[in-house]
């Protein structure tokens, strides 16, 4: 592919680029990000993106807490995380510069929308002096231009109001950055035409702004010091791709998972950040004859409706985040007791309580494992990347049905919103494992068990199988209510053993990177996969003896994990909590596991993980 729009400037060849867009919520930052992402994806780059937005819907303009941002890392190498530091920051106002300058690497480029650098905005951002003049920007390459004014000039004559004309500034900035990275505007143009219609004034104005931004670079108006890049595409498997967010992948995973177990999907949920995208994506599938979406009155009703639907024969799913998980607890115990298939997606966010709704953590692990009164074990899986959300949920549906059990999928806010390229699977190639509905009244008993210890799925409407179930303890032989102590022991053991056997249905644990024994293993789970992997790989190229072990199944723990851990002198769990998995591994394997922990609402940075591991290698 190479660069189609070279311009007159010499382009610097680099392997990977990192761009961060930042500005007010009203600046159209997320749109800039997603359009840049599509352009980068279509050029054949591997990539990872992450948005970061305020919890307020329209925070007061110009304030630091109202800054919204989007980071993309893309290039020819395998990209597994959105990167620590950006090479290029687009700051649409002083507040964005203030918040994000720290996230730019030394010598990086800062594109400033100078039109917004007036006294009012400086004050709103809490800046005493103009960062352009007080030395703040020393060590960075500065591209200062009045994006707002350039945009107004570009779209003048199209009959737009000043306000609507000014709104096109994100397209101008997008055009400029696309040019800097040698990318064309075609994908963005196509999108604009689809979104606004080819001939509409708004569509034409946005397109003009996009072209003007691109041309600004191309005609060498760009400040001489600003770098322009040439990045080679990645060697990705040929095929049909799309970019996918974790939120979309979780939703699609439920649809395909239900399809593959041969049951209609019932999805009952209640809106909550950051889980709502899953609900929205599924609700948009209203024409799918196998998908029913129900917005419940609260999370208790959401999971309760799922339990009712599962009892009636659907594969049910629900999605939520910490506060909603808390509300679902009692019903989740009922699903354990009644042994009904159900997938609960927890998009973890920072707590306690409302915490930081838009920030991501892994702080619900202990809650997922132990957070139900009474002995109520259930399987827990965690996806490692946006596209892996799909595979993990498909797996969860299989387990739910095969073992007649609720399953928790521990995603997080970062995963829901992050995106990456996805080589589209052919759904026909995904193995179907149809659920067996019980129909034979002969010898039927609602809590009889098969070889996996699963009870039969006997749904209302089936003649001869009329039976009563509920939360009261049931007799292991007859299914009738039983208060017998021995029976309760037996049923408790059976429930635990059933969940323990899920491990047999999943692959044994392997190392992800490095040798299967040695000096130090770093353990990761969930969304920290990509950062930890990069940290470990870099340390290995730097000559360090270190391996990565990544867990998808968190309960029951994978087969072979204990043996694997025993082969390392030191084991460090890197996780975004105070040490949940660490405590579980210590308890399970009596190994002196150490922790690398962070609870600031942000994903790990590669450099921090590297530093943490290095400190333990000395």
């Amino acid at each position, binding site marked *: 592919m190479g660069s189609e729009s070279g311009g007159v400037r010499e382009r610097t060849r680099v392997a990977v680029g990192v761009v961060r867009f930042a500005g007010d919520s009203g600046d159209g930052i997320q749109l800039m990000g997603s359009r840049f992402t*599509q352009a980068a*994806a*279509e050029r*054949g780059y591997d990539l990872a993106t992450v948005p970061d937005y305020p919890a307020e819907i329209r925070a007061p303009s110009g304030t630091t807490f109202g800054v919204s941002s989007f980071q993309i890392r893309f290039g020819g190498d395998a990209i597994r995380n959105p990167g620590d530091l950006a090479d290029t920051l687009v700051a649409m106002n002083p507040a964005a510069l203030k918040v994000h300058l720290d996230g730019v690497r030394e010598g990086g480029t800062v594109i400033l929308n100078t039109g917004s650098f007036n006294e009012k905005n400086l004050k709103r951002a809490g800046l005493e002096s103009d960062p352009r003049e007080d030395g703040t920007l020393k060590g960075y390459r500065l591209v200062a231009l009045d994006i707002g004014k350039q945009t107004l000039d570009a779209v003048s004559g199209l009959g737009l109001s000043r306000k609507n004309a000014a709104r096109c500034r994100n397209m101008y900035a997008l055009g400029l950055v696309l040019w800097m990275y040698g990318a064309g505007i075609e994908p963005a143009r196509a999108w604009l035409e689809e979104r606004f219609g080819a001939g509409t004034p708004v569509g034409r104005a946005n397109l003009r702004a996009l072209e003007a931004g691109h041309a600004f670079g191309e005609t060498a108006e760009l400040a001489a010091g600003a770098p322009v890049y040439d990045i080679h595409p990645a060697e*990705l*498997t*040929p095929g*049909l*791709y*799309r970019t996918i967010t974790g939120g979309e992948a979780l939703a699609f995973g439920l649809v*395909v998972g239900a*399809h593959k177990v*041969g049951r*209609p999907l*019932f999805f*009952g949920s209640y809106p909550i950040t950051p889980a709502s995208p899953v609900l929205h994506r599924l609700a948009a*599938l209203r024409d*799918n*004859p*196998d998908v*029913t979406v*129900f917005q*419940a*009155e*609260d999370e*208790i*009703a959401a999971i*309760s*409706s*799922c*339990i*009712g*639907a*599962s*009892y*009636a*024969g*659907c594969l*049910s799913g629900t999605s939520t985040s910490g506060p909603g998980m808390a509300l679902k607890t009692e019903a989740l115990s009922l699903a354990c007791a009644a042994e009904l298939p159900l997938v609960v997606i927890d998009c973890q966010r920072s707590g306690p309580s409302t915490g930081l709704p838009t920030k991501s953590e892994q702080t619900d692990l202990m809650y997922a494992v132990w957070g139900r009164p009474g002995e109520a074990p259930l399987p827990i899986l965690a996806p490692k990347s946006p596209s892996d959300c799909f595979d993990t949920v498909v797996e969860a549906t299989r387990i739910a049905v095969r073992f007649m059990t609720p399953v928790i999928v521990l995603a997080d806010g970062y995963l829901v919103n992050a995106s990456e390229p996805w080589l*589209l*699977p*052919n*759904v*026909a190639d995904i193995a179907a494992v149809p659920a067996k509905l019980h*129909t*034979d*009244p002969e010898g039927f008993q609602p809590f009889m068990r098969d070889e996996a210890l699963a009870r039969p799925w006997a749904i*209302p*409407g*089936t*003649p*001869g199988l*009329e*039976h*009563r*179930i*509920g*939360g*009261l303890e049931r007799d292991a032989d007859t299914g*009738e209510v039983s208060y017998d102590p021995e029976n309760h022991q037996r049923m408790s053991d059976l429930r635990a053993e059933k969940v323990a056997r899920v491990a047999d249905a999943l692959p044994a644990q392997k190392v992800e990177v490095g040798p299967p024994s040695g000096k130090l293993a770093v353990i990761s789970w969930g969304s920290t996969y990509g950062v930890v992997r990069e940290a470990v790989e870099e340390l290995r190229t730097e000559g360090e003896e270190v391996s990565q072990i990544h867990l998808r199944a968190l309960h029951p723990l994978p087969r072979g994990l204990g043996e694997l851990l025993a082969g390392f002198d030191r084991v460090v769990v890197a996780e975004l909590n105070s040490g949940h998995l660490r405590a579980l591994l210590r308890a399970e394997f009596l190994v002196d596991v150490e922790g690398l922990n962070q609870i600031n609402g942000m994903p790990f940075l590669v450099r921090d993980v590297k530093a943490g591991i290095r400190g333990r290698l000395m």
Partner: protein
Amino acid sequence: MNAPTVPTKPDPSYFASEQTVRWCPGCGDYAILKGIQRALAERARPREDTVFVSGIGCSSRLPYYLATYGFHTIHGRAPAVATGMKIANPDLDIWVVTGDGDGLSIGGNHMLHALRRDIDLNILLFNNEIYGLTKGQLSPTSRLGTRSPTSPGGSSERPVSAVRFALGAGGRFVARALDVQQDRLPEILVRAANHPGASFVELLQNCSVYNDGAFSFLTDREAGPRQRLHVRHGEPLRYGADGEFGLRLDARTMKLEAVEVGPGGCSEEEILVHDEHNPALAGLLATIGPPDFPLPLGVIYCDPAAPASRPVGKAAQPAIRTTDEELTAMLASEGTYQLT
């Protein structure tokens, strides 16, 4: 497999399970269970298509005693479980069994939304004006002054009226019945079950242990007839052993008046005729009761219009309908690009 089909005229015992019933002697739940079995027999729907979903409480044990499908869920959540079940399979005949604490305290929110959504559930609220299973604490329907372990000095909270709550929540079928009235109870239950959309029946139920005699004012041989107003669509609102009393509307104050009918009292023409389709009248009937008025029993409100929303029933089909190809197309529905 030989599918048991329902007999043409099943006996109520056809719907009884083999479980020993475990309520206290004299509990009103026995009578209601009997009434339900009679109603089921009269409706003669197959057992396998019938589900009883309950919450937690003495009343919520009821599903165990029926030979249908049954789900004894968790405290207060039965309407939500039943909602999911009905959406999943609209062909099922789903009954919700709940108590005054279960349905109006911990589960009040779900009750509100079940009625508002008007999904076709038959909701039976066993109102004994007390928490039975947990040994007699105050419930949200307990009368002012009720002494209980949690209100030893007598309750100072005003009770909620189940019927007014149901009407306020948008309930389109609202009825009230008395546990011991076996001549009337099954008929009301059958009507509730036949009503398309959510139906709500408040069942006044005697708790012989913790709130004995709460409804004896209605069952009393002497005084009872003057306290019970059996409402029936198209019939005058008259009560008393010989119908010697009736309800009249004072149009200027918009208030009901309890009056004597006949010579010396008011004329028969002045007595209101029950119109169960009339929400304004239902609202008035929901507010009256002792000491100044009789307590209305029967179908207080029934909106004859079809429900505004019906469960779409996508989840009901026995087999899935989408193909692998359609789902592959779903995944590829936005922003695809080809890499070579």
